[in-house]
C-alpha cells in the first residue's frame, strides 16, 4: 500500500486523472473542512512512492475535485464558498484559470460530463445543481432540488442524463434532452429510503426513515444501475427502470457512508468509504435475479473518517486510491483485501 500525507489538511476527495496513469488529484481542507483554507494536491505515483507534483492553496475548504475530460492538465474543484475553480497544472502560477461563482452556499461536488465532455455539473448546499461550460462564466442551467445536494453525477452511458442525491433522502434524475417544461428536465424523483423491490412481497418488508444521502455513483457497465449511500449506513443499488425501490441493500458500515464508486473494470464491484474509518468492497450480485449482494473486503488503514474513493482505470485492474480525515491518501490493490 502506498501512502501520502496531506499534512495539515484533511482529505475530502481523491480522483485519478483520465489522461495520466500515475496522476492523482486530492481535494483537502484545513480544520476538517469546517473553517479555514483548502488545498488542492496534484500527486504522482513514482518509483519512489507518491510524490507531490504541485499543490494549490485555496481561500475556503475544498470538498470535491474532478479532472477535465478534454484537457489533460485541467482540474476542477468545488469549494466551501460555493465557487468552482479550474486549474491548469502545466502553468506556473498558483491561481485558477477560471472561477465559477454562483452557488450561494458550500459546493459539495463537481462532476465532469463523461460523454460529451463539454460540460460539468456542480451541486451545493443551496439546493441547486448547476451545469456549466468551462468557457462560460455563467452557468448554462440551474436545476433546483430545494435540499442540500451532496453529490451530482453524469450518467456515463447516456449523454444528457444527470443525477443528484440530497439530504431530503431523494435521488433525482434529470434528462436534459427533454424539454424544460415545469419539471426542469426532472424525470425521476426516487425516495431512497423506500422499501426494497423484492419479488416476494408477502414477506414483512423492512421500513426505513428518510435519511441524508451523501453520495452516489452510476455503474460503468450497466447503464441503468446506480448506487447511493448516506447517513443510514446502507448502500443501495437502484435500477432506474424500476424506480419503486432499491434493488439491493448493502449493509455493513457502522457509520455514515461518505463516498461510493463503481469499478471501471467489473460490472458488479463497488467501493465505499465511510465515517467508520473503513473502506469496503462490495459485489451487488451483478443484477442476476436471486444473486445475493455481499461485502467482499474491508480496508481499515484509515484512522479517521474515510471520505474519498476512486478506482484507477489504468494498469493492473483493481487498484484504488482513498483519502480521509487522517490526512492519509492511500493507494492500494483492492484485490488484496477481497476474500471470495
Amino acid at each position: 500500500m502506498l501512502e501520502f500525507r496531506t499534512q495539515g489538511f484533511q482529505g475530502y476527495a481523491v480522483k485519478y486523472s483520465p489522461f495520466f496513469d500515475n496522476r492523482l488529484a486530492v481535494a483537502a481542507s484545513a480544520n476538517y473542512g469546517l473553517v479555514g483554507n483548502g488545498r488542492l494536491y496534484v500527486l504522482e505515483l513514482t518509483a519512489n512512492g507518491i510524490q507531490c507534483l504541485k499543490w494549490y492553496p485555496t481561500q475556503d475548504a475544498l470538498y470535491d475535485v474532478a479532472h477535465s475530460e478534454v484537457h489533460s492538465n485541467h482540474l476542477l474543484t468545488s469549494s466551501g464558498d460555493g465557487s468552482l475553480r479550474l486549474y491548469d497544472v502545466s502553468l506556473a502560477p498558483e491561481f485558477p484559470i477560471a472561477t465559477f461563482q454562483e452557488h450561494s452556499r458550500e459546493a459539495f461536488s463537481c462532476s465532469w460530463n463523461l460523454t460529451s465532455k463539454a460540460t460539468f455539473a456542480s451541486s451545493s448546499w443551496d439546493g441547486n445543481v448547476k451545469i456549466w461550460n468551462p468557457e462560460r462564466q455563467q452557468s448554462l442551467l440551474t436545476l433546483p432540488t430545494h435540499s442540500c445536494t451532496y453529490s451530482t453525477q453524469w450518467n456515463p452511458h447516456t449523454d444528457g442524463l444527470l443525477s443528484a442525491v440530497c439530504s431530503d433522502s431523494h435521488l433525482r434524475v434529470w434528462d436534459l434532452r427533454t424539454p424544460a417544461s415545469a419539471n426542469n428536465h426532472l424525470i425521476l424523483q426516487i425516495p431512497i429510503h423506500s422499501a426494497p423491490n423484492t419479488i416476494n412481497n408477502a414477506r414483512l418488508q423492512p421500513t426505513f426513515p428518510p435519511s441524508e444521502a451523501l453520495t452516489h455513483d452510476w455503474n460503468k457497465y450497466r447503464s441503468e444501475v446506480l448506487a447511493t449511500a448516506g447517513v443510514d449506513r446502507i448502500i443501495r443499488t437502484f435500477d432506474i427502470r424500476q424506480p419503486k425501490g432499491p434493488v439491493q441493500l448493502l449493509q455493513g458500515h457502522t457509520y455514515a457512508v461518505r463516498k461510493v464508486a463503481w469499478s471501471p473494470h467489473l460490472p458488479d464491484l463497488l467501493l465505499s468509504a465511510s465515517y467508520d474509518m473503513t473502506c469496503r468492497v462490495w459485489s451487488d450480485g451483478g443484477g442476476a435475479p436471486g444473486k445475493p449482494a455481499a461485502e467482499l473486503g474491508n480496508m481499515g488503514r484509515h484512522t479517521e473518517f474515510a471520505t474519498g474513493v476512486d478506482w484507477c482505470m489504468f494498469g493492473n485492474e483493481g487498484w484504488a486510491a482513498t483519502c480521509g480525515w487522517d490526512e492519509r491518501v492511500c493507494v492500494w490493490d483492492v484485490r488484496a483485501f477481497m476474500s471470495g
Partner: protein
Amino acid sequence: MTQAPDKARERLSQVSGHLASDNQPALPSSGLGKDAILKKSPDDVVVTCAIRTPFTKGGKGPLKDTMGADLLLYTFKNLLSRSKIDPSLVEDIATGCVLAPGGGATEFRAAALAAGFPDSTAVKSLNRQCSSGLQACVDIANAIKSGMIEIGIGSGVESMSTQYGPGAVTEFSELLENHMQAANCKVPMGVLSEQMAKDKKVTRKDQDAFAANSFQKAIKAQEQGLFDEEIMPVTVKYTDPKTEEEKTVTVTKDDGVRTGITAESLSKIRAAFAKDGTIHAGNASQVSDGAAAVLLMKRSTAERLGQPILGKYVNASVVGVPPLLMGIGPWKAIPVALEKAGISKDDVDIFEINEAFASQCVWCIKELGLDESKVNPKGGAIAFGHPLGCTGARQVSTLLTELRRTGQKVGVSSMCVGTGMGMAAVWVAE
C-alpha cells in the same frame, strides 16, 4: 467572507448530523432475526399470566361431570386471583372450543360474568378445531397490536366428557358429500392418520417409542413438580361411577400421566383403526377435559400496571393442507412462522408440538429435522391429554414455564388441525 463563525458552526452541525445515530441497528425497523425478536419494545404483546386446569381423562377422570363453561369459569377465577388484574381492565376474552353447540359463545359469556368480569368485558368463542386455543390467543394478540383493545385473555376449554359425540358436527349436504375433498373433512382423525402413517411409512415401533418417551417425560416432570406453576387446581363435583355418590374433589394433577409405560408395554395394545394398523389408544392423544387461559397486553401496559412479564408473543402462522393429511400441519406451519420471525429452527430452544398422534408427530419432527431433545420436554398430549379447544392455550403456559425454568429464550408452539390445517406461533420467554 462574512459570518465565518456561523458557517463553521453550521458545517460542524451538519457533520455531527451525519453521525447522530439513535443506537439503532442498520435495519431500523426490520424486526427480523433472533436479535430483533429478543429486543424489548414497549409495543410488544406480552404474556403476564398463563395458567391451566389439570387435564383429566374424558368420561373417567374427576372433571368428567363438570360442564365446559364451569371449567372455564374456574380458570377465569384462577387467572384473576393469580394475576391480580382488575377485571374491568380486560376488554375482550376469546375462548377456543370445538364441541360446544353454538361454539359455546353464550355459556362462555355467562362464565366470564360469573367469574367476576364486569359486563364491559366482551367474550367470543371460536373454533379452528385443535388450534382453537392458539387461535384465541393470536386473535387477542392481533387485536392488541392493531389497537382494538389494550388488555385481553386468550383461552380454551373442552369438556370432551360431556360434549364429545356426533352432536358436534352438522350433517353434510349432498353438495358437500359429493365433493371429494369436502367429504374428506368428515373422515375420522384416527382413520386418516392410520392411512397417513401407512403411506408415509411411520412404523409402529417408532410410534410406540415416541409415545413411551412422552409418558416418561411427563411422569418425570410431574414428579419433579414442573407442572405445578402452570396448573391451578379446581374444586369440582364428581359422581363416582362405582358408588353413584356425588363428591366434591379438588383436582391438582393431570391424571392421564402414568408410570411404567415403555415401548414394549405399548406394543401389546391392539390397533384401534385398522386390523393391521399402527395407531392405538397408547400412541394417540388422550380424550380429556381441561381449560387454560393466557392474559395478554402490551409491554407498556404491563409495566404501567405492574404486571410481571412472562414472555412475549412474536408472530403466528396458519396454513392449509389436504384434509386427509391433516397431520402434516406442523411441518408446513412451523417454517412459515419461523420465516416471518426471521429466525431458523436452530434459534428455537423449545418446540411444543401437539401430539395428536405419535405417527404424525414423529413424521413432522423428522421432516423438519428438529432436535428431538428440544421437542415437548415435559411430554405431550399422548401423556396428559388433548382437550381439543384448550390445547393451544395450554401450550403457552407449558412452553413459557419451561423456557423460563431452563433459562432459555425462544419457543415455538404448533399443532395439526382436523380438516387439514396447521398453526404455529413464536414466543420469547423473559
